[in-house]
């Protein structure tokens, strides 16, 4: 199995187009970092302007606010919405791309089962997701920390602000990246399922993005009837639950508690739902693929 996985990874990472995703991510991160490096204070003022009625901020606070941790948070907020497209480019191509190329026959006339092949493709997609996130971590977290230094992280919420001490932040990022890996793996599993249904990679890639866009819109809409009936079951609602690691508990005096998470059960619930979706998508992909006639 490891040898087969190695082959699959070799195929993914030997293709020049795989690196388009890495290049696009680098471009976005560097543009954000560049803008904040030269005009960061204006960005901070804009952020705080919404809260200025109820809070007063010292100049020192404002100076410390703009640090590597905050910039990484801003980048994650921006990029984790776009990353499903990058994942779909590889996972959507996994079966349909091989079918279009004719190489699916090459694989399926060998003594490996179809379920095994799906398993290998899925594992390779997970490795790709992890490599994308590692790249993002290097660019957004390490890069921003090196460029802007570290300080306490302040996260703005509609209900107020969350402040975390600088030595209480790094583990939260680790947890957030791990959660993002599960969230993006859900997209990879969906894309793989759609890839099994098609003989051309364009269809599954576009379909994945369409599903993600439609579900995200539904997740964001403020229609009461959807809040309890639809939203809790959409995987896109739970893909952003990584933010939960940056919402902290406060004691009676309003001081944030180190190492705390405001609603850990909600984060775990989201994780469970995403894992459920992965099992569902993957199971459906195996079920369909085992019965599919290979005509290409």
């Amino acid at each position: 199995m490891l040898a087969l996985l190695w082959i699959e990874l070799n195929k993914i990472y030997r293709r020049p187009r795989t690196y388009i995703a890495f290049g696009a991510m680098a471009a976005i991160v560097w543009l954000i970092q560049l803008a904040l490096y030269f005009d960061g204070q204006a960005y901070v003022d804009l952020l705080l302007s919404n809260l200025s009625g109820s809070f007063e901020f010292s100049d020192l606070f404002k100076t410390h606010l703009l640090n590597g941790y905050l910039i990484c948070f801003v980048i994650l907020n921006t990029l984790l919405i776009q990353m499903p497209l990058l994942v779909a480019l590889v996972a959507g191509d996994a079966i349909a791309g091989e079918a279009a190329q004719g190489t699916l026959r090459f694989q399926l006339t060998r003594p490996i089962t179809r379920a095994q092949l799906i398993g290998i493709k899925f594992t390779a997609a997970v490795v790709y997701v992890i490599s994308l996130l590692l790249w993002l971590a290097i660019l957004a977290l390490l890069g921003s920390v090196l460029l802007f230094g570290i300080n306490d992280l302040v996260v703005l919420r509609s209900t107020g602000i969350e402040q975390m001490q600088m030595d209480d932040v790094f583990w939260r990022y680790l947890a957030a990246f791990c959660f993002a890996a599960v969230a993006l793996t859900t997209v990879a599993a969906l894309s793989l399922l759609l890839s099994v249904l098609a003989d051309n990679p364009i269809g599954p890639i576009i379909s994945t993005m369409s599903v993600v866009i439609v579900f995200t819109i539904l997740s964001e809409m403020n229609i009461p009837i959807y809040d309890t009936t639809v939203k809790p079951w959409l995987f896109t609602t739970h893909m952003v639950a990584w933010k939960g690691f940056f919402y902290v508990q406060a004691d009676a005096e309003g001081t944030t508690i180190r190492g705390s998470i405001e609603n850990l059960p909600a984060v775990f619930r989201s994780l469970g739902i995403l894992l459920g979706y992965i099992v569902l998508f993957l199971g459906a992909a195996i079920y369909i693929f085992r019965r599919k006639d290979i005509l290409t």
Partner: protein
Amino acid sequence: METLVHVEHLSKRFGSFEAVRDVSFAVQRGQVYGFLGQNGAGKSTTLRMLMTLIRPSSGSIEVFGLDLFRHRREILRQVGAVIEKPDHYGYLSAYENLRMAAVLCGLRPERKKLMEQLAFVGLADRSQSPVKTFSQGMKQRLGIATALVHDPSLIILDEPTNGLDPLGIADIRDLIRRLSREQGKTLIVSSHLLSEIELIADSLLILHQGEKRMEGKLQDLLNPAETVAELELNDRQLADTVFSQTDFICSVDWRSDRQCCIRLPKNRIPDLVHRLSETGVAIQAVASRHSLEYYFLQLTQTEPHAGAVVD
């Protein structure tokens, strides 16, 4: 002789279209078994079912005495195939593609062994070139190398000479002969080219519109002492009288009121021409026709013949 492949009442439907209908055949160990049929006859669909790419709608397939779909992995370990056209990863080299095929077969390939395989198909000097730079013939040969990489005892080649120039066709033909004669492999080779099948196959299955039209040994089918003469005559009635009185004629097949095909011993064509001339039948043209082609057309012609076959 050991039966390697045993197919019984195989059918495949795609919606309302029946691509293969009630086909049965058996392939013996060591044979080169030819699948002959026009485009769309059901050859590729049948071969895809033999490689488990397509599930049959009904019927059974046994390979090495085992049910194909129950013992798929076990069977495919001993089967190598190139279905329709050999498709490889263009950005990888020939060596990498071959190595990938070996790993997919569960092998831990040694470089030396893979290079020997490439040398066998004449690609040793291009082992490191990306496959996208290969000609169709080279891709075909690499396809055969990937089919052979795990030393299978049964090899299935679907239209292996498609898209090749005459030199490439001769290369592949030579390769198939070497596999059969030198290595004792069993091969199933499909083609729509009569001459190719005649040159390489021991036994033959003719498919037409999804149905089996004939199965048998080529030597039984093609009597080397017989030929088919295609004649253009001016008087069908008179000619028929001559034919009915001529004892060495095996069969007469009228294609039109003026054209007929006569199966007869090779050395009796002058006698026939002489008899026809003597009776006053004017012979406007005489041509010796390829016997397999004649046989194939007889079996696969959908339009009713202009005349009945007389035996």
